[in-house]
């Protein structure tokens, strides 16, 4: 059934369809509509699970970890400062191999204060052991939450579904809501190990020797590596059932392109329009969308990028002192390529500033005109 709704409400629908029994959350703009919608359904009896209204995001994540270890599906949603406050527990969730699913609405981090789109909040959690997906629109956010449970419950790692403030969270668009029976078939009743027995409470995170710690970390890394394959399989299965798929990366008009734009999240949609215009004007420009960020799909990217002359990564985030984070990761992935391309980094859309097809077109032309490589990130301001 197709309905007209925001990205936030699309996420809430996904959580309801996944029959998540435990949702623990704390409201924060611009994620709050997810929390409110789930609360509304809880009070009207439409939600199968319960909402735990915790006193902070740190507690919300702690609750999700505990519940997950009793063998049930869990969900939380947050943004920006809330995610930052969760930081310590994010490490615990991944280390405990708890298959929690979280939606993070990408909002800038203070200071100064604001509510606008910026991916730095989730990207700065990249080393916590969470799988991360970046979504282009509400439909993809809904579908990715459903896929996330299937992936998390196979590899025993938590998943963060990222959608940008405003451009996804608050954009109302037609969204296809899958039928409950289909989601039930795709996500059969859960049979996770019960690692925590509430009848016999105990401490789950003992002190270990250095050797054991290293082994656990290595197992986590191996599980994380397997996500590249598992996520692609789950996406294929999803397509069979629901008719939609996204890939872990998506190449668009890449084959005959000499210059490749790289984007993640909502900017990708706008870039799809921009490259059409550039093509009509005769510029050999293609587009590559990165959907899966953790684990970073190194092999898939290497294959797609081989033979290209210029890569133009547009980042809606900046690691101060380094630059755009998608660009950092991509440069590292390409270091052993034969005849590596020039990789340019443009910072655009930071703090929710608007990125139009024209912005992207101008960035592409700027990169096409450049003769020399550039190590530093280019702060793009439309003129």
């Amino acid at each position, binding site marked *: 059934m197709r309905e007209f709704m925001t990205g936030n409400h699309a996420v809430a629908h996904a959580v309801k369809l996944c029959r998540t029994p435990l949702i623990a959350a704390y409201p924060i703009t611009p994620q709050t509509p997810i929390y409110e919608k789930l609360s509304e359904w809880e009070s009207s009896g439409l939600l199968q699970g319960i909402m735990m209204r915790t006193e902070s995001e740190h507690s919300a994540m702690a609750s999700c970890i505990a519940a997950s270890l009793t063998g049930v599906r869990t969900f939380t949603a947050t943004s920006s400062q809330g995610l930052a406050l969760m930081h310590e527990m994010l490490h615990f969730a991944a280390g405990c191999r708890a298959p929690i699913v979280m939606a993070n609405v990408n909002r800038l981090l203070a200071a100064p204060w604001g509510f606008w789109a910026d991916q730095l909040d989730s990207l700065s959690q990249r080393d916590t052991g969470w799988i991360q997906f970046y979504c282009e629109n509400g439909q993809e956010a809904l579908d990715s939450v459903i896929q996330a449970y299937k992936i998390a419950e196979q590899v025993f790692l938590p998943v963060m579904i990222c959608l940008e403030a405003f451009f996804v969270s608050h954009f*109302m668009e037609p969204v296809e809501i899958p039928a409950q029976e289909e989601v039930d078939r795709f996500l059969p009743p859960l049979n996770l190990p019960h690692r925590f027995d509430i009848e016999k409470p105990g401490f789950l995170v003992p002190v270990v020797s250095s050797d054991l710690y290293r082994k656990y970390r290595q197992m986590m890394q191996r599980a994380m590596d397997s996500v590249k394959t598992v996520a692609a399989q789950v996406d294929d299965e999803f397509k069979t059932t629901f008719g939609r798929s996204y890939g872990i990366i998506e190449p668009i008009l890449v084959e005959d392109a000499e210059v490749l734009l790289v984007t993640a999240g909502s900017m990708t949609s706008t870039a799809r329009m921009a490259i059409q215009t550039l093509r009509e004007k005769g510029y050999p420009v293609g587009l590559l969308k990165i959907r899966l960020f953790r684990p970073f799909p190194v092999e898939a990217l290497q294959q797609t990028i081989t033979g290209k002359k210029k890569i133009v990564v547009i980042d809606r985030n900046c690691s101060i002192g380094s630059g755009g984070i998608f660009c950092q990761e991509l440069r590292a992935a390409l270091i052993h390529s034969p005849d590596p391309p020039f990789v340019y980094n443009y910072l655009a859309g930071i703090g929710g500033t608007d990125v*139009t*097809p024209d912005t992207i077109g101008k960035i592409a032309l700027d990169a096409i005109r450049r003769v020399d490589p550039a190590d530093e990130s280019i702060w793009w301001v439309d003129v």
Partner: protein
Amino acid sequence: MIEIKFKGRGGQGVVVASELLGRAFFIEGKFPQCFSLFGSERRGAPVIGFLRVDEKPILLKCQIYQPDQLILFDLSLVEEKEVIEELKPGGTLLINTDQGIEAFKNWRQFKIGLIDGRPIARGAGVEGALNTTLLGAYAALTHEVRKETLIEVVRRMIPIKTESNIKALQTAYDRVRIYESLS
């Protein structure tokens, strides 16, 4: 694709207006996309609503700079020159005002609809929000959406004072003064 921009103040129903109209387009089988910009969520603060509608899914994920249609809830928020620069040539302007067409002689290159929304809304029993009133006027001015669809959306989405809102919509539909473009 049609791009519509709504300008008003917090409390006038700008955000809800764009959502109601978006939903009406959706019911009529179109692909709408709507969103809003507000600096701070409080009464009186300037609010901008955006609505795009097309026969196919819309890929743009950015603001609207040159709308085809501009709906002004509050004239005090716009400069005469700004409207001329912003609105697409051949565009349509819906203005909530108690003034006559002579006050807008420099905008006559556009198709204009004038509606004195406040007394209409108040007369129908709606205080504050002008969204349903202006949407009634919009339907008569542009014929982009059917009045009946808008009424259906109001019934579905506005649980309080539903009939008053429908009355305001209907009255504005009948009373909007329409002036074709002079160019």
